[in-house]
């Protein structure tokens, strides 16, 4: 699900780069602290591995074949920080060398696949593995499920980024300027492909390689085992909170800047004749449809329906509805998994305390 150039507006791209950057900076700092000089060859070879694995044609249950990104096994073996860097490097080489994924969309692709992907795998793999021994079959299941869910969350994140484009970026006549499908189409379309082929591919690779390493080289599985000192933890640092906040604040600001006069009309304006004249004049005399586009109506009602009648008018506006969708997209996904991670760390710390070294 590498997003090419042209599907995301420049302001969306800028916001997503700004969202990804703090994670890159922190990941580099953390990895350098853990591995110091060793990081250069390790990240390079790990990225090369990801690149090659993405080219594998994987036989899937059901007789079809698919591809995987490798976010699952990379996170399990290297830990989440190094995985963020390795997958980001692999994605850049794919974008430059093979045109797989755009350059303006690179920040978005890294955020979805490298960052969100690694984060989700880390949380789910640890949660499901618990304190099972390294060679336990439970870890195979944990890896497969973590990989499956991670790639679907990545796909959902991408779908949301794509789905909000038409509402926020269109020209005076209402034609979408970038990705042309609203959330109601982009989300199901992306998820169908990933809940099936891509998800299974990721599950097969994650579980399969873990099983292989359990036999061939179990020491590679120590970094995220939750069992000992070799474990590389994950914690949000201040720069990352700032980055996340920037993501959530800049998104509506950027979108407001790009919004045109046409977008500020509400659903009711389609029915009022005077307003319709104004709309027509602004839209090069193309008469607006008698009813507001269906998508516009449905989306706005999702947010305003629960607002009571006495609420101030701005809370009921459609613009707020769109902005809320945008914020919900990337930021909330990250928050949800961070919350889950925090809960798991607290509970595992309680379990570790009695008498463990």
């Amino acid at each position, binding site marked *: 699900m590498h997003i090419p150039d042209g599907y995301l507006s420049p302001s969306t791209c800028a916001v997503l780069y700004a969202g990804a950057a703090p994670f890159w900076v922190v990941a580099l700092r953390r990895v350098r602290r853990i591995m110091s000089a060793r*990081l250069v060859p390790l990240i390079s070879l790990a990225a*090369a*591995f990801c*690149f090659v694995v993405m080219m594998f044609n994987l036989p899937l249950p059901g007789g079809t074949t698919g591809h995987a990104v490798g976010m699952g096994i990379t996170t399990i*073996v290297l830990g989440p920080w190094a995985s963020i860097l390795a997958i980001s490097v692999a994605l850049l080489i794919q974008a430059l060398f*093979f045109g797989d994924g755009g350059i303006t969309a690179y920040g978005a692709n890294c955020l979805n696949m490298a960052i969100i992907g690694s984060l989700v795998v880390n949380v789910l793999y640890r949660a499901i593995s618990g304190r099972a021994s390294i060679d336990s079959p439970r870890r195979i299941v944990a890896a497969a499920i973590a990989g499956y869910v991670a790639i679907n969350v990545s796909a959902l994140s991408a779908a949301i980024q794509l789905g909000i484009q038409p509402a926020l970026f269109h020209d005076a006549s209402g034609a979408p300027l970038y990705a042309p499908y609203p959330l109601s189409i982009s989300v199901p379309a992306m998820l169908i492909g990933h809940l099936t082929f891509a998800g299974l591919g990721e599950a097969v690779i994650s579980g399969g390689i873990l099983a292989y390493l359990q036999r061939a080289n179990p020491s590679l599985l120590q970094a995220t085992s939750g069992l000992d000192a070799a474990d590389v933890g994950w914690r949000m640092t201040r720069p990352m909170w700032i980055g996340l906040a920037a993501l959530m604040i800049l998104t509506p600001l950027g979108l407001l800047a790009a919004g045109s006069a046409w977008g500020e009309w509400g659903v009711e304006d389609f029915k009022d004749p005077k307003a319709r004249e104004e709309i027509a004049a602004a839209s090069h005399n193309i008469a607006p449809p008698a009813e507001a586009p269906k998508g516009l109506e449905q989306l706005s009602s999702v947010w305003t329906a629960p607002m009571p009648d006495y609420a101030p008018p701005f809370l009921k506006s459609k613009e707020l509805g769109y902005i809320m969708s945008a914020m919900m997209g990337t930021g909330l996904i990250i928050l949800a998994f961070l919350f889950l991670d925090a809960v798991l760390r607290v509970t595992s710390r309680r379990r570790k305390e009695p008498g463990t070294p």
Partner: protein
Amino acid sequence: MTAHPFIERTLAGFADALEHAGTAERLADQKGLLQRLDPRVKVIGALLLILATMCSRRLSVTASMLIVAVALAWLTRIPLRIVATRVWLSVLFFTGCIALPAAFTTPGLAIWHLPLVGWQITHQGLFSAVQLILRAETSATFVLLVVLSTPWTQLLKALRALRIPVTAVVILGMTHRYIFLLLRIAGEQFEARRSRLVGMLSSEQRRKIATSSAGVLLDKSVQLSGEVFSAMQARGFRGEIYTLDEFQMNPRDWFALTVFGVVTIVALFLGMRP
């Protein structure tokens, strides 16, 4: 041998990647317009032109940027056939398939009805689909031009001009170098298994072949990284990497950069008017 298409397709994919790289290296040696420019100018120029393409709200401006890209390709002695097969056809296929339904689903002014089914294409939908395809094609073409007219090692060093840290650039270079080694190792894995296959395999067995090849590859990659680290240490690496700064701008480079800048500004001005 088509009893096991996943092996064939994987090996074909590897061969494709190697051929891709070979063509790039060959074309970077030609004596066209872009090859003679400072790589930093090309990188910055491409980014500016892509930005202008992305910001355009008008089909005429987006289409003009595509024409600029094609003109640059021709001036760089890059055969249009190569650009077509590498970029235009695949983008057309991929984005075309995605964009086509948008012509029907986007609300707006209907301009054509499909006979029999009664579906209608809207003006807005058609505009949107064409914009999307043009943008994707143009951006991909600019990227391809930079990559095909610049040797990889120079391209990496040019990224330093974008303030990308030395460590990142070194990692990119090392990753690229070892991709070819890993492709060879993985290819040997698959070929060895292919030659030992007798009869049909179960689905489970096929999956095992793919995942254990990947597992071996991961194991070897980690091991290799340790050995490379020793090799780096043996030649004085202590954590900070030092590289050679070799680029010098000459008047032709400044001129080209100015031209790219002017085209970008004009395109932005024309394209962003509502």
